């Protein structure tokens, strides 16, 4: 019997500009007040989340934050203690892994060692009793997609780490799941390979239009891959947003600190106007002027977060009384494309500054040198927790 070639493939559907901003957009995956307890310990604590079709959603957090547990609940390997999960409108409560329209790429890849690459990829289709000819064709095209056609007959132990990763991806994708779960997909690869594979993953996702949920502890990986990131801590999603939202507008000290490096100054609001605030910080030994209003109680303790690349360093005093501080260079790390300076303030606080090495013969700032640090009034992010 002839099988219509590739008739059932999903037409590639790019993510709409930002479905999460549209209140009428239908969530593809809906996590509704899900909690998972192990004894007294709440691994996942009352999480609600909507993921939209075609997204790459990254769950980002340190180990033990509950991100893997949440992923495993999506896959059906753990049962929520309370709450519900809907995938494409269907309630997944009580649906075992083998009946979910979901596939998972395991951190260890979990390739079947007694089967060849081809048999591994064909495994899920055989299980679904897909006709032989169609299996052959789908496996072949999937192996081509992940550039493993020449390795079809190899056993997993005859492959490199990167090749195994691609077999695992092919095996999970060949079933055309509605949702692909990836547990630390690039964790076992070295840095160069990881960067290349990140872009491959994005292009494959783009071609197939499958929705991805990725778990990672690597913020760089999350920033590169994700359409949105959910930052997790202690079983909760502390902030969800696009990579730039998370980086530029962190909602809490934790998020600011977790994503990239940041200088955080504790202080008290001394002027609180709708269009600006001024913060007095003992830690800084000066005042911080921010060119937008915030919502906080007067006299409240707040934290101003300034990214190292947004701090200017100069030997001559800059203008103005605000957002300026003097310190001594304590340490310099030369990274080639940029340099990291650790500047010690008179208060004892160490401020991290990065500067791009734009000139090959810049007048070098050296150790022990007295410098002025300053930043724009738009740079600090003020958080209240």
């Amino acid at each position: 019997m002839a099988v219509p070639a590739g008739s059932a493939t999903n037409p590639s559907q790019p993510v709409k500009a930002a479905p999460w901003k549209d209140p009428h957009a239908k969530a593809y995956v809906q996590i509704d007040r899900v909690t998972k307890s192990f004894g007294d310990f709440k691994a996942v604590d009352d999480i609600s989340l909507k993921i939209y079709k075609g997204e790459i959603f990254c769950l980002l957090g340190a180990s033990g934050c509950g991100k893997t547990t949440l992923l495993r609940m999506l896959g059906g390997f753990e049962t929520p203690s309370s709450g519900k999960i809907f995938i494409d409108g269907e309630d997944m409560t009580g649906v075992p892994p083998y009946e979910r329209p979901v596939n998972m790429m395991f951190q260890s890849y979990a390739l079947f060692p007694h089967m060849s690459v081809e048999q591994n990829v064909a495994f899920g289709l055989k299980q679904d009793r897909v006709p032989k000819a169609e299996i052959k064709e789908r496996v072949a095209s999937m192996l081509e997609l992940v550039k493993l056609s020449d390795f079809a007959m190899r056993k997993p132990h005859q492959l490199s780490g990167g090749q195994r990763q691609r077999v695992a991806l092919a095996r999970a994708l060949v079933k055309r799941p509605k949702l692909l779960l990836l547990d630390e997909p690039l964790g076992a690869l070295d840095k160069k390979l990881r960067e290349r594979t990140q872009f491959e993953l994005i292009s494959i996702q783009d071609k197939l239009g499958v929705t991805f949920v990725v778990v990672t502890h690597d913020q760089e990986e999350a920033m590169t891959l994700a359409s949105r990131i959910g930052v997790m801590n202690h079983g909760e999603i502390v902030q969800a947003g696009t990579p730039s939202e998370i980086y530029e507008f962190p909602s809490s000290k934790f998020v600011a600190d977790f994503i990239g490096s940041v200088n955080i100054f504790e202080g008290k609001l001394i002027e609180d106007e709708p269009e600006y605030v001024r913060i007095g910080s003992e830690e800084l030994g000066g005042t911080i002027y921010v060119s937008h209003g915030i919502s906080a109680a007067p006299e409240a303790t707040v934290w101003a977060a300034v990214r190292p690349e947004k701090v200017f360093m100069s030997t001559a005093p800059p203008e103005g009384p605000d957002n300026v501080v003097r310190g001594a260079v304590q340490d310099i790390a030369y990274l080639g494309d940029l340099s990291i300076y650790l500047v010690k303030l008179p208060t004892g606080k160490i401020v991290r500054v990065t500067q791009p090495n734009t000139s090959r013969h810049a007048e070098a700032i050296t150790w022990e040198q007295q410098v002025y640090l300053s930043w724009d009034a738009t740079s600090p992010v003020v958080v209240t927790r």
Partner: protein
Amino acid sequence: MRRAPWSQRFGLNGRGLVVLLPYLWLLLFFVVPFVIVLKISFADIDLAIPPYTSLFQWDEKNVLSIKLNFNNYVFLFTNELYFKALLNSLKVALISTLFCLLIGYPMAYGIARAKPATRNLLLLLVILPFWTSLLLRVYAWIGLLKANGVINNILMALGLIHEPLAMLYTPFAMYVGIVYSYLPFLILPLYANLEKMDWQLLEAAEDLGCRPWQAFYKITLPLSRNGILAGSMLVFIPAVGEFVIPALLGGPNALMIGRILWDEFFSNRAWPVASAVAILLLLLLVPFMMWYQSIQARESAGAK
């Protein structure tokens, strides 16, 4: 020129000595006895001590004559008792191995999947019977199985049966004894194999559409093949020559090759025939042992 110490001149050093020891052991306790048995199997029965003729004759004309008597082997091949006993032994060993597998696989699997703390306890329980002599444990089974034994008494007290079941001195009792005694030999290698298993593979199989029993059949079972084979060999090989358990539990009709061997040696004092039986049995089991060795080699090489 300084002379090397004597040990080095003979190619011996610390490492050489360590390697030499097991070979010495094998020579002393395997090769030498084997050669003696082989020698006796070519002798003739004799009313003497020891009760067989010598192969080597040194006569007064200084002629060494070697007399090899092949009649023992001819006798074995022409008398169908031995063939039947051998066949029966193979049958008993095979059935016992299958039962060991049926009981031992779930046990090994359960131990391998238990929490590490429980696992050690369970392993200890498997090994525990070795702390008592095999003979004592077989006698304990007599106490359990006999007409007024523990099992019959309990069943009668419960009113399930009205007269004792005849269990002792039946093939059933013999199989119970063999399966019980050899079970640990199957569980331990199988456990060692299953313990190395990556259980995430089962989740992956379920994720790809397998029900749990399908995942077991398609993933766990093929991956534990080497453990199954190794464990089965460890039961099968000694069970073929098993003598004590059939003699004590199986009753007079249990025709086993080990039993025949015993009878030839001690009742008939036919050492040459008994030796020939032993040699043939050994030759029969050598292929199985070699197979077991190759499985072990594969297992330690880690290739699957």
